[in-house]
C-alpha cells in the first residue's frame, strides 16, 4: 500500500479569483472546485486487492482518496492481468457505491411469487430467523436443506465449511457452464479442466467455440487469455475458428469454419478419421500412454488377465509384438501393438484403437460436411493444418530436458454445453491425443499443473444405484455421471416420483445465486420455487429469485471484505492473492464469512469437531499447527487469513495488505509439462481413449431399467447421433444459441456503465435469413421456441440485429441479460434467452449438463 499526501490547495488559489466574477456567468453553476476550495491535503492510497466481478480474481490497486474509492486499476505484479483490467473490472466501482444494493437485512412483507415488498430488520433478527429454520429442518431431515452458490469467489473453504458443518445439499452453476467438458477430460485424462493451449509455444490453434473477444476460455474468465493470445499471434500462431459465429474470434481467426451448432462431435470424428487415414498420428504416445493397445473382446470389454492377490479384476491385456502374445498392459519390456487384430485363444480380437479406427470409417469429411454444414474441404484443411503443424516426432529442450514438441492445440470451453457435450469433448480431445499433443510442449493442456482429479479413479467404476435418489439424481440410473444441474433439480422437485426422489427440499439458502435469472428454463424453476417453504438469500442485490421467493435477504459485502486465498497464476507464473477491503463494508452489509460464522453459531455447528471452524482449519491446512483457529473462538475474517498467511510462512495478513499478491516465481516445467515429471503424466495413465467403464455404466443403467434416452450416449467411443432439437417441427427453422458479451457476461449485477454500452437485448440474425422473413434491421420480432419432444412453446419479444458474421440458420441472444435483478438499469432491457431454453430430457447431455440449443421461429412483431 502506497500512501501519498498531495496538496490540493492549488485549487483554492487558482479558482478563488475568478470564482466570484464567473459564478453568475457559469449559468448559475458554481464550479466544483469551489466546493473544495477549503480542502487541504488529501491522502491518496493505493490499496491492493482483487477484482470481485469476474471469475479469475484479477489483481487490483484501489485508488482511495480520503477514504473514498476513486478508481480501480490493474495490479502491475499480478500474473493474471499484469496491471490491466477488463471493462467490468474498471466499472465495478459503480456497483460498490450502488444505492440499489441491499442496505440492511430485509424481510418479505407480501406473499411469495410476486415482486417483493420488504421491511428492514436487524441483523440479529435476520440471523435468528434463518438459523432457526435451518436448525429445524436439519433436526427433522437434513436432506431438505439446500445450499447453493453461483460462483465461489476465491477459495471456497468457507462455503465448504458451511456445507460440511450443516450437511446441506450443495448445488452450483457448473452444469450451465462447461462441466460436460470437465467430465470428459476427467474421464479421459484425469485432469480437471477443459481444453487450452500452451500459449507460449503453440503454433496452430483451433479456437473451437472460443469467444476470444468476449468470454474466457478454459480456467480464466477473460483477460489472461487474450493477453497470451495476442502475444502468440505476434509470435506467428495461426488460429482457425470453428464457431457458428465469427464475432467471438473476430479478426484473430485466420480461417473460419462456421460449423452448425451441436455438430462438433461429427466434426471432431471426421478430423480424427483424416488424421488416422493420413497416418499423421503419434504412435509412440498412443501406444505408451493410452489404452489404445488394449484388447477388446466381443462384448466390448477389455480382455483381462486373471486377477492377482487383492485385485478386483485382472489387468487389461495388450498384444506384445515382441513375443506375439497377450500380456498385461504394464508388463515391462513389451512393445504393444496399437492397431490390428490378434488371435487370443480361440477368438480374433482387435485392439481398442483398431475398434476406434473402424468406428471412424463412416465419419468421412463428406459425411461430417453434411452434418456440420461446412464444405468437406474446410475439414480436410483443418486436419492437414493440424498434421503439418504438429511436427510429430519432434522434440524441444526446455530447461535442460528434452520434451516432445507438438505445437498444436484446441481451446474450447463453454461450447461443451450441448446435447452430446460429454462425448463431443472426448472426441475433440482425441484430436490432440492422436497427434501426441496432450501435455507436449506447445500442445494440449487443461489445467495449470498436471495433477489427478478425484473423478479419474471414480470414473473407472461409475456408481449407478437404485433409487430413491437425492434431488440432483446423484449416482442415479438417470444421470450416473452428474454435474448437478439446478434446472434439472427444479424438474425433479416438480416431478419427484418420475425420478424416484422421495422428498422435496424445505429450506434453501441462496448465496449470490439467481437460478431464475441465470439458468435456463425459467418456468420450471419458478414452479419449483413455489414449493420451497423458506428461502433465504445472501446477496448484495435483490436478485429476481430473491425478489420473487426469498423470505429473508442478508446483505453481503462486495469487494469490501477479506476473501481468499486465490490462485493468481497465469499458467506460467505461480502466485497467490487475497481480497483486501479498500473501504469498510457499505451500509449494513457484512462479509460472508462473518455471516456464516454467525449462522453456524446460532445453528450450533460452529465449534467442536466437524464444526465450521474445524473444517476451516482443515481446508486452510491450519489443523495441528500453532496457527489453528481455536475451536471455541469466533474469529474475524482478517484473523483467519492472518493465520493462513502465517502458516504459509508469511509475516501475516499485513503482507497481503501491503503487496496484494504473493509471487512464487515461474511454474517449474516438471509441474507443468507431464513429460518432464518424474513419472510421465504423474502416473495418471493410460489415458482412456476407449471408455470401457462407460459401456459398463450403460449396462448397469439398462439393468436398472433406465430408458434409452438416458443411457444411449454412454458408449465406449464417441458416437454421433442426430440431435433431439432437430426433430422439432420444420416451421421452427432457426437454431437459437446463447452467447456472451463482455459488457455483462457473468456480471453479478448490472453495472450502469456497462449497461449503457449494451442497452437492449437483441436477437442476432443473418440478414439473408431475416429478409426471407420480411424482417429488417431493428425490427421488433417475436422469437418462439419449441420443445422437440413435448412441443411446448415459449416466446419472447426482442429486436432483430443483422450480423453477417453469423451462420445462416442460426440466431443468437446474449446471455446474462434482462430483468434478472431489482435494479433501475435493467428495466426495459428486454428478455433473457433463458426463457426460451428448455431443460430435461433431450436438452441435457448424458451428464445432466444443460444444452443451450433450441429450435425457434422468428417473426416480425
Amino acid at each position, binding site marked *: 500500500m502506497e500512501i501519498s499526501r498531495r496538496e490540493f490547495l492549488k485549487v483554492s488559489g487558482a479558482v478563488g479569483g475568478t470564482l466570484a466574477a*464567473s459564478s453568475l456567468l*457559469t*449559468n448559475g453553476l458554481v464550479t466544483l472546485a469551489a466546493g473544495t476550495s477549503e480542502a487541504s491535503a488529501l491522502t491518496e492510497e493505493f490499496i491492493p486487492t482483487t477484482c470481485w466481478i469476474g471469475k479469475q480474481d484479477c489483481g487490483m490497486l484501489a485508488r482511495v482518496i480520503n477514504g473514498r474509492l476513486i478508481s480501480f486499476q490493474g495490479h502491475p505484479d499480478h500474473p493474471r492481468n499484469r496491471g490491466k483490467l477488463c471493462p467490468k473490472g474498471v466499472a465495478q466501482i459503480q456497483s460498490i457505491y450502488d444505492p440499489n444494493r441491499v442496505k440492511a437485512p430485509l424481510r418479505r412483507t407480501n406473499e411469495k411469487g410476486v415482486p417483493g415488498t420488504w421491511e428492514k430488520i436487524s441483523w440479529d433478527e435476520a440471523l435468528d430467523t434463518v438459523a432457526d429454520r435451518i436448525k429445524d429442518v436439519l433436526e427433522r431431515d437434513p436432506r431438505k436443506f439446500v445450499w447453493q452458490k453461483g460462483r465461489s469467489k476465491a477459495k471456497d473453504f468457507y462455503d465448504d465449511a458451511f456445507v460440511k458443518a450443516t450437511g446441506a445439499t450443495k448445488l452450483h452453476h457448473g452444469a450451465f457452464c462447461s462441466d460436460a467438458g470437465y467430465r470428459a477430460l476427467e474421464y479421459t485424462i484425469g485432469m480437471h479442466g477443459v481444453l487450452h493451449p500452451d500459449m507460449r509455444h503453440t503454433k496452430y490453434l483451433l479456437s473451437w467455440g472460443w469467444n476470444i473477444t468476449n468470454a474466457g476460455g478454459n480456467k480464466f474468465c477473460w483477460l489472461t487469455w487474450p493477453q497470451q493470445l495476442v502475444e502468440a499471434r505476434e509470435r506467428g500462431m495461426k488460429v482457425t475458428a470453428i464457431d457458428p459465429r465469427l464475432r467471438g474470434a473476430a479478426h484473430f481467426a485466420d480461417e473460419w469454419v462456421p460449423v452448425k451448432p451441436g455438430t462438433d462431435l461429427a466434426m471432431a470424428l471426421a478430423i480424427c478419421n483424416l488424421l488416422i487415414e493420413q497416418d499423421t498420428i503419434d504412435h509412440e504416445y498412443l501406444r505408451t500412454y493410452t489404452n489404445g493397445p488394449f484388447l477388446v473382446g466381443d462384448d466390448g470389454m477389455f480382455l483381462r488377465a486373471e486377477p492377482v492377490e487383492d485385485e478386483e479384476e485382472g489387468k487389461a491385456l495388450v498384444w506384445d509384438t515382441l513375443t506375439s502374445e497377450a500380456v498385461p498392459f504394464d508388463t515391462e519390456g513389451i512393445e504393444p501393438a496399437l492397431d490390428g487384430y490378434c488371435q487370443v485363444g480361440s477368438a480374433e480380437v482387435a485392439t481398442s484403437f483398431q475398434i476406434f479406427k473402424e468406428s471412424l470409417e463412416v465419419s468421412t469429411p463428406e459425411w461430417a460436411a453434411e452434418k456440420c454444414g461446412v464444405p468437406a474441404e474446410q475439414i480436410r484443411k483443418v486436419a492437414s493444418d493440424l498434421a503439418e503443424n504438429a511436427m510429430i516426432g519432434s522434440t524441444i529442450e526446455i530447461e535442460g530436458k528434452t520434451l516432445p514438441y507438438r505445437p498444436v492445440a484446441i481451446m474450447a470451453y463453454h461450447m461443451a454445453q450441448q446435447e452430446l457435450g460429454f462425448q463431443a469433448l472426448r472426441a475433440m480431445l482425441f484430436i490432440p491425443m492422436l497427434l501426441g499433443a496432450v501435455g507436449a510442449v506447445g500442445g494440449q493442456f487443461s489445467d495449470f499443473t498436471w495433477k489427478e482429479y478425484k473423478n479419474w479413479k471414480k470414473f473407472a467404476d461409475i456408481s449407478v444405484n437404485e433409487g430413491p435418489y437425492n434431488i440432483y439424481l446423484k449416482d442415479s440410473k438417470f444421470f450416473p455421471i452428474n454435474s448437478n444441474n439446478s434446472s434439472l433439480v427444479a424438474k425433479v422437485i416438480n416431478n419427484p416420483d418420475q425420478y424416484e426422489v422421495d422428498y422435496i427440499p424445505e429450506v434453501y439458502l441462496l448465496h449470490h445465486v439467481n437460478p431464475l435469472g441465470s439458468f435456463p428454463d425459467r418456468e420450471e424453476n419458478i414452479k419449483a420455487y413455489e414449493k420451497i417453504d423458506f428461502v433465504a438469500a445472501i446477496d448484495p442485490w435483490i436478485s429476481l429469485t430473491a425478489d420473487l421467493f426469498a423470505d429473508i435477504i442478508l446483505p453481503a459485502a462486495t469487494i469490501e471484505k477479506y476473501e481468499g486465498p486465490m490462485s493468481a497464476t497465469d499458467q506460467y507464473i505461480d502466485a497467490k492473492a487475497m481480497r483486501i477491503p479498500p473501504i469498510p463494508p457499505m451500509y449494513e452489509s457484512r462479509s460472508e464469512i462473518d455471516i456464516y460464522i454467525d449462522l453456524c453459531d446460532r445453528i450450533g455447528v460452529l465449534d467442536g469437531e466437524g464444526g465450521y471452524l474445524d473444517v476451516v482449519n482443515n481446508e486452510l491446512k491450519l489443523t495441528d499447527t500453532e496457527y489453528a483457529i481455536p475451536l471455541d473462538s469466533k474469529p474475524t475474517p482478517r484473523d483467519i487469513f492472518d493465520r493462513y498467511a502465517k502458516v504459509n510462512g508469511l509475516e501475516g495478513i499485513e503482507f497481503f495488505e501491503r503487496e496484494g499478491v504473493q509471487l512464487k516465481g515461474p511454474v517449474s516445467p516438471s509441474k507443468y509439462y507431464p513429460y518432464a515429471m518424474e513419472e510421465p503424466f504423474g502416473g495418471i495413465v493410460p489415458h482412456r481413449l476407449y471408455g470401457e467403464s462407460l459401456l459398463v455404466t450403460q449396462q448397469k443403467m439398462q439393468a436398472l431399467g433406465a430408458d434409452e434416452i438416458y443411457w444411449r450416449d454412454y458408449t465406449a467411443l464417441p458416437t454421433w447421433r442426430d440431435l433431439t432439437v432437430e426433430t422439432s417441427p420444420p416451421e421452427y427453422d432457426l437454431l437459437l444459441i446463447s452467447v456472451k458479451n463482455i459488457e455483462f457476461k457473468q456480471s453479478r449485477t448490472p453495472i450502469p456503465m456497462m449497461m449503457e454500452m449494451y442497452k437492449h437485448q437483441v436477437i442476432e440474425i443473418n440478414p439473408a435469413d431475416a429478409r426471407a422473413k420480411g424482417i429488417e434491421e431493428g425490427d421488433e420480432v417475436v422469437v418462439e421456441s419449441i420443445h422437440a419432444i413435448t412441443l411446448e412453446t415459449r416466446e419472447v419479444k426482442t429486436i432483430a440485429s443483422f450480423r453477417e458474421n453469423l451462420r445462416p440458420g442460426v440466431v443468437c441472444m446474449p446471455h446474462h441479460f434482462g430483468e434478472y435483478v431489482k435494479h433501475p438499469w435493467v428495466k426495459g432491457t428486454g428478455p433473457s434467452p433463458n426463457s426460451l431454453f428448455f431443460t430435461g430430457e433431450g436438452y441435457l447431455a448424458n451428464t445432466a449438463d444443460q444444452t443451450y440449443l433450441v429450435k425457434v421461429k422468428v417473426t416480425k412483431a
Partner: protein
Amino acid sequence: MTTQNETLPYEVGRLTRGWIAMVAVLLILMGVGGYAYYLQFTQGEIVTGLRNLGTMGGATWGLYIVFLVYFIGLSFTGISIAAMIRLLGLEKIKPIARMAETMTVIALILGAMTIMVDVGQPLRAMVNLFRYARPGSPFFGTFTLVIAGYLFASQIYLYLDGRRDAAILAKKPGRFQRFFRLWAAGYKGTPAEKKRHNQASFWMAIAIVPLLITAHSTLGFVFGLQAGRPGWFSALQAPEFVALAGVSGFGLLICIAAIIRKVLNAEEKLNQDVFEWLGNFLMFLIVAYLYFMVVEWLTATYSSGGAEASVSNALFTGEYAWMYWLTVATLLIPFGLLVYQFIFKRYRLAWIVASGFMVNIAAVVKRYLIVVPSQTHGTLLPYGIGSYSPTWVEYAVVLGIFAFGTLMFVLFIKIFPIMNIPENSEGGE
C-alpha cells in the same frame, strides 16, 4: 388627443383595437417562448431535440441555427434597398425603404437572440465573445460584422434617413414631440442639409455594400469552410447564402409591405409599381439561387461517394426528400408566377405576395436542409444515421423570438411613420 393623433401620419400613436389584440397575442407568444427558454436555461438543452453527433446520433445544431441563418438572411433587404435607392437612384421604391430598414434592424436583433438561445452558456458568451473572440473562427464575422457592425450600420441608416420625417413630426404637439425632436437633431430641411444627407447616404451605401456581401458570406463560411462535414464544405456556400438571404428578405418585405398597404390603406403610396419592382427583383434573385441549387445538385450527385453520397441521398431521395422538394416547389412556383407576370406584364398583387410568402417557406426549409442533414447523415466515420426532430421547446422559443420581432415592428409603427411622409405634408417647403 384624438386630434393630435389624427394629425400624425400612418396611424402613429393611434392604438386601434386590432393593434392591441395583436400586441396581446404577441405577448402571449413571447410568454410561452420565455417559459420554454426558462426550462432550457434551468434544465439545460436536454429539453431540446438536439443531441451530440456521433455516438448520440443526433444533430447538435438545429432549429436555432436554422433561424439564426434565416433572420440574418432577412437583414439583407433593408440595407440593400437603402443602398440601391442611393446608388441606383430608385426613387420609386422609397416608400418601402424604412420598413425594409426596420426589418433589417429587427432581424439582426432576432439573429443575436437565436445565438444566445443556442449557446449552452449564454451569460458567459456575452462576456467571453467580447473578450476572446478569435478572428480565425468563421463565427468572428457573425459576432462582429453581422451582429455588431451590420446592426450598427443599419441603425444609423434608419436614424439618418428618418431625420427629415422626425423633423416634420416634431413640429406637431403631442406625446412623442420630444422624441421626434431628439431624432431630428436640429434637422430643418435646408438644401444644404439635404445635400449633406444625400452625400452621407451615398458614401454609406458605398461602404455598406461590401459589408453586406462580407457579412452574408461570413455566415456561409461558418458552414462552407468545414472540410470535415460533407454537404457543407463548398466554395458555393458563401454566394449561396448571399443569394438566399436576398430571396428571403425581399420575399418577406413584399409580405410586410402588402400588410402595411392593407392596414394603413396605403394603396396609393404602396402602389402596384412598388410591388412590381419588388416582384421583378425577387424573380432575379430566385434565378440566381436556382442556379446555385442546380450547381449544388450536380456537384452532390455527379460523382460523390461515402458520406457525401449519404447526405445527398438523404436530401434528394431519403428522409429529407420531402423537405428538399418542398423547397424546390416553393421556389419554382413563385418563379413561374413572377416570370409569367414579368413577360406578360400582367401583375397581380396577390401573386406577388404569395410568391414572397412561399420563398420564405423555401428559405426556412432550405436552411434546415443546410444545417441538419450534414450532421445526421454526414459523419465521416461510420457512426450510422442520426436523427433530429425539434421539441416543442425549440418551436416555442423560435415562435417567441418571432413574436418579439413582430412586437418591435408594430411598436415601431406606432411611434414612427413606417413610410416616408409625403412631400405635401412637409411644412415650410
